C-alpha cells in the first residue's frame, strides 16, 4: 500500500506536468498490486506498515537518519541551524539544561546560586566528567575558556551578545565558577544553558585543533563525532563509553544530508533511514502518517508578520494594524492549507516559552470590523501595501488567500519576490513594508528586547516594526532584575498583553517540526528546543 501512496504523493507534487501523469499512474497501480506481497530486498527493505514493535532490542543499535541540510560548523560558537543543533545537542553539555517545560535543570553544573541583585552567579560543577577523545577531565577552566572564547571579538561568535553583560569569569577551584555581571540578569541561565553558545568545549582540544575544531568537536556529551564528511553530507556520532550520565543504547547514529523532502520521504519509506529529521510538506507528512510512521513532533517557532510604519505610514495607526488582523482568516488558512505543520497562534511569542500566556487579545476573522477600522483610520477608499516575499518560498497559496481576504476589506496587497539572500538583507536593513520573521529563541529577554526595544530599530536591530512603547521598554528593562519567578512571569505576561493590544507584529502561526520515524524505533519526545536526545533512542526488532 505504501508504494501506491508514495506514487500518489509524488504525482500530486508534479501534477502540472501532464506527461508524467500517465506514467506515474501506471507505475503506482502496478506498485500497489505488488506491495501486497511485501517486497523485501536485502538492502532496501519493507515499509513501516509492515513492521510491528516486538519490544526486543535489535542486535545492531545503529540509527540512520536524514538531515535536511549540512551542518556548517559544530563549534558551539557558530552552531546555528537545526542540523547542527541536533548533533551539538548530543556532543556537548551546558552548565544547565532545559526540561520538557523549559525550566532549568542541572547539566554540567550540579547546583548554582546568584546573589540578591542577580549580578553574581556561582556554579558548582560535576566532578569526574571526561571529554571525548582523551582530552581529559572537564574543569572550571574549560568553562571560563568556553565563554571567554564566545566573548572574544576575534572569534566573532554568533552568540557573543548572550555574554555581553558578563564582566568576569572566575575559577576559585576546579569545580567552581563565578560569573560577575555588569548588570542584573534574572535570565542569565539561558546564556549558559545547553544550546548554542552555552555549550562547553575542551580548552585543550580547541587549542590543539584550531580552526579544525569546527569539524572535529570535542565535548562531554553522550556521543562523540566519528565522521564529518561535508563532501558526502555524511556524519556519524558514536556512543561515548565514558559519558558521565546514563549511557546511550544506540551505538551509532548515521546522519545523511538529503536536501529534497520528496527524496527523503522515499528513502525513509524505502528503509534507507529509520528517521527523517524535519520532513516538511503537509501532503507528504499525512502520507507518512497513513503509512504507519510515528510522527514525532514539537512546536518549534512562531511566524510573525512585521508591519513597518517607516515604509508605509498607514501602519503607524493601530486601527490599521487591527484591521489587517481582523481581515485575514488565519484559522481557515491553516485548516485548509497547513493543518499538519502549523497551528493557529494568537501571540507573537511561541507557546514553548515558559513565560508564554494566552491571556492576550485575540483577533478573530471579522472583515466587517476590519473595514470599519480602516474607515475610521481614514482609509475608506482603500489602502495599498507591499509584502516582501522570500524567493525560495515564492508566492504560496497562503499568500494568495491572504491577498484575497485583504482585498475584501479594501486593502490591495502587492507582492515583491526577491532572492533569499536579498530578502535577509532587506529585512536586516528594514527595507520592507510587510515581511515575516520566525521567532524561536528560548530566552524571552532576547526576544522581547530585540523585537520591542527602541534601541533595536533596523538597520542592525530586529525590531522590524519599529515599535516603541515606553511602558513596554520599562517593563523589559525592569524584568532583568526581578528575582521572584511569579513576579517575572507576571511582568512578561503584561508585556505580551500590551504588545498584542498595540499589535506591531501580527502572529501568523506556530510551526511544528516533524520527525517521521519507523515504528520499530523507540523514540522520546523532542526536547523543548525541538532537538532529540539520542540517549533515549533504541532500535527494536522489525518483524
Amino acid at each position, binding site marked *: 500500500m505504501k*508504494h501506491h501512496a508514495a*506514487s500518489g504523493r*509524488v504525482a500530486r507534487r*508534479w501534477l502540472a*506536468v501532464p*506527461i*508524467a501523469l500517465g*506514467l*506515474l499512474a501506471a*507505475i*503506482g497501480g*502496478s*506498485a500497489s498490486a*505488488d506491495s501486497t506481497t511485501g*517486497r523485501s*530486498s536485502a*538492502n*532496501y527493505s519493507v515499509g513501516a506498515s509492515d513492521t510491528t514493535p516486538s519490544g526486543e532490542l535489535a542486535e545492531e543499535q545503529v540509527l540512520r537518519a*536524514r538531515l535536511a541540510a549540512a551542518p*556548517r560548523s559544530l563549534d558551539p560558537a557558530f552552531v*546555528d541551524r537545526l542540523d547542527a543543533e541536533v548533533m551539538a545537542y548530543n556532543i556537548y553539555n551546558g552548565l544547565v539544561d532545559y526540561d520538557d517545560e523549559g525550566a532549568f535543570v542541572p547539566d554540567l553544573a550540579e547546583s548554582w546560586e546568584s546573589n540578591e541583585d542577580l549580578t553574581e552567579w556561582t556554579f558548582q560543577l560535576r566532578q569526574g566528567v571526561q571529554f571525548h577523545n582523551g582530552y581529559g577531565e572537564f574543569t572550571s577552566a574549560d568553562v571560563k575558556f568556553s565563554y571567554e572564547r564566545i566573548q572574544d*571579538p576575534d572569534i*566573532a561568535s*554568533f552568540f*557573543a*551578545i548572550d555574554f555581553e553583560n558578563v564582566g568576569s569569569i572566575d575559577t576559585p577551584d576546579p569545580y567552581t565558577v563565578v560569573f560577575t555581571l555588569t548588570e542584573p540578569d534574572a535570565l542569565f541561565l539561558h546564556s549558559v544553558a545547553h544550546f548554542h553558545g552555552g555549550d562547553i568545549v575542551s580548552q585543550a582540544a580547541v587549542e590543539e585543533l584550531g580552526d579544525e575544531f569546527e*569539524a572535529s568537536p570535542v565535548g562531554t556529551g553522550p556521543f562523540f563525532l566519528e565522521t564529518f564528511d*561535508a*563532501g*558526502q*553530507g555524511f556524519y556519524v556520532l558514536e556512543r561515548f563509553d565514558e559519558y558521565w550520565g546514563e549511557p546511550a543504547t544506540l551505538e551509532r547514529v548515521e546522519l*545523511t544530508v538529503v*536536501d*529534497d523532502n*520528496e*527524496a*527523503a520521504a*522515499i*528513502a525513509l*519509506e*524505502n528503509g*534507507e533511514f529509520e528517521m527523517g529529521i524535519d520532513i516538511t510538506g503537509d501532503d507528504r507528512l499525512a502520507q507518512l502518517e497513513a503509512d504507519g510512521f510515528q510522527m514525532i513532533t514539537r512546536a518549534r517557532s512562531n511566524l510573525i508578520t512585521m508591519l513597518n510604519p517607516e515604509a508605509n505610514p498607514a501602519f503607524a495607526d493601530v486601527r490599521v494594524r487591527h484591521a489587517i488582523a481582523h481581515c485575514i482568516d488565519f484559522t481557515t488558512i491553516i485548516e485548509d492549507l497547513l493543518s499538519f505543520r502549523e497551528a493557529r497562534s494568537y501571540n507573537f511569542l511561541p507557546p514553548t516559552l515558559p513565560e508564554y500566556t494566552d491571556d492576550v487579545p485575540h483577533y478573530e476573522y471579522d472583515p466587517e470590523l476590519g473595514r470599519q477600522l480602516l474607515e475610521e483610520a481614514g482609509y475608506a477608499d482603500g489602502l495599498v501595501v507591499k509584502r516582501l516575499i522570500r524567493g*525560495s518560498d515564492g508566492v504560496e497559496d497562503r499568500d494568495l488567500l491572504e491577498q484575497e481576504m485583504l482585498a475584501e476589506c479594501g486593502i490591495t496587497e502587492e507582492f515583491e519576490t*526577491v*532572492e*533569499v*539572500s*536579498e530578502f*535577509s*538583507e*532587506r529585512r*536586516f536593513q528594514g527595507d520592507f513594508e510587510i515581511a515575516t520573521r*520566525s*521567532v*524561536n*529563541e528560548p530566552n524571552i529577554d532576547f526576544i522581547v528586547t*530585540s523585537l520591542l526595544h527602541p534601541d533595536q530599530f533596523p538597520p*542592525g*536591530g*530586529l525590531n522590524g516594526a519599529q515599535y516603541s512603547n515606553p511602558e513596554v521598554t520599562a517593563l523589559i528593562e525592569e524584568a532583568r532584575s526581578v528575582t521572584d519567578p511569579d513576579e517575572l512571569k507576571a511582568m512578561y505576561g503584561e508585556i505580551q498583553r500590551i504588545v498584542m493590544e498595540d499589535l506591531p507584529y501580527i502572529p501568523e502561526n506556530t510551526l511544528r517540526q516533524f520527525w517521521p520515524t519507523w515504528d520499530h524505533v523507540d523514540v522520546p519526545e523532542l526536547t523543548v528546543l525541538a532537538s532529540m536526545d539520542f540517549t533515549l533512542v533504541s532500535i527494536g526488532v522489525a518483524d
Partner: protein
Amino acid sequence: MLRYTLRRLAQLVPTVLGLVVVVYLVLRLAPGDPAVSALGENPTAESVARLRERMGLNQGVIPGLLDYMGGVLRGDLGDSIVETRSVSQIIGDSLPVTIVMASAALVLSVMLGVVLGAAAAYLSSRGRDALDHGLTGGAIVMEATPAFVLGLVGLLLFVLKLGWLPATGIFDLVDIGNTARRLALPVAILTVGSLATIARLARTSILEVLNEDYVRTARSLGESPFAALRGHALRNALLPVMTLSGITFGRLLGGTVVMELIFTLPGMGTTLLKTIVDRDYPVVQGIVLVYAILYVLVNLITDLLYRRADPRVVLT
C-alpha cells in the same frame, strides 16, 4: 597541431580570468550579504559586523578582486566563508560526481545515438522507414519530457517498486558497484535526453552521405550496402556528431543539477546553487572557474578530434 593546441591553451588564460573578474564583480555588486544570510533569523548589527570581519568581507571590492586574482594565479582558490572546507576541497569533493555523470551520459548517448541513427538511416535508405519514424517520434517525446519527470518516475519504479536501487547513500568512486547503483538512473536519464538529438543528427548526416556519388560508386563496384555504410558513410557522417558532442557535454554539465537534486548526489551543480544562495563568494567563483575551464577544454578537444577525423580541416 601542437602549436595550435598551445595557442588555444594560452587563450584559455585571459578567457578564464576575464570570466573570474566578471563573476567576482557581479557577485559583489548583487544585493545580499553572506553574513546576514548566515545568521538566519537573528542577525544583529554586532553579530553581522563580527561575522563580516571573520569572513574577510570588509575589504573593498577592488583590493578583494586583486587579492583573489593573485590567489588564483598561485593556484589558491581560498576558503569557503560559510563552511569549514577550502574551495579546492569543495570542488575536489563535488567535481568527480558531475564529471563521471556527464561523461558517462555523453559516451552512452554518442554510442547509442550513432548506432540508432545509422540503423535508421540504413533502413530508410533500403525503403524500410519504421525505425526511422520511431526514432524521430521517440526523439520528439524524449526532448519534450523534462528530466525531473523522468527522474521521479525512475525513483518510483526502480527505488520504490522494484527496490533495485537506493534513493540516497554515499557516493564512493572507488566502490564501482556503489557508483554504478547510485549513477545508473541519473546517467540513463541524461543519456535518454541527449541520445535523441544525437541519433537524429547521425541519421540525417548518414542519409546525406549515403546519397553521395562516391558511396554510389562504391556500391556499383560491388560493395555491400552495409560495407558502404561502415567503410565510407559513417566516418564522414560523424563529423557533425562530433561537433554536437562538444556542445552536448557542456549541456550535460549543466543538466546534472536536476539529477543531483533528485538523486541526492553531491555534485558541483547543487553545490553551486547552494553557495549562490549563501553568497559564499569564493566557492561560487571557484566553481565557475572550473566550469569555464571545462567548457574551453572540451571545445578544444572537439576541434582537435575534428581535425583528426577530417584531414581537410586546417587548424589555424
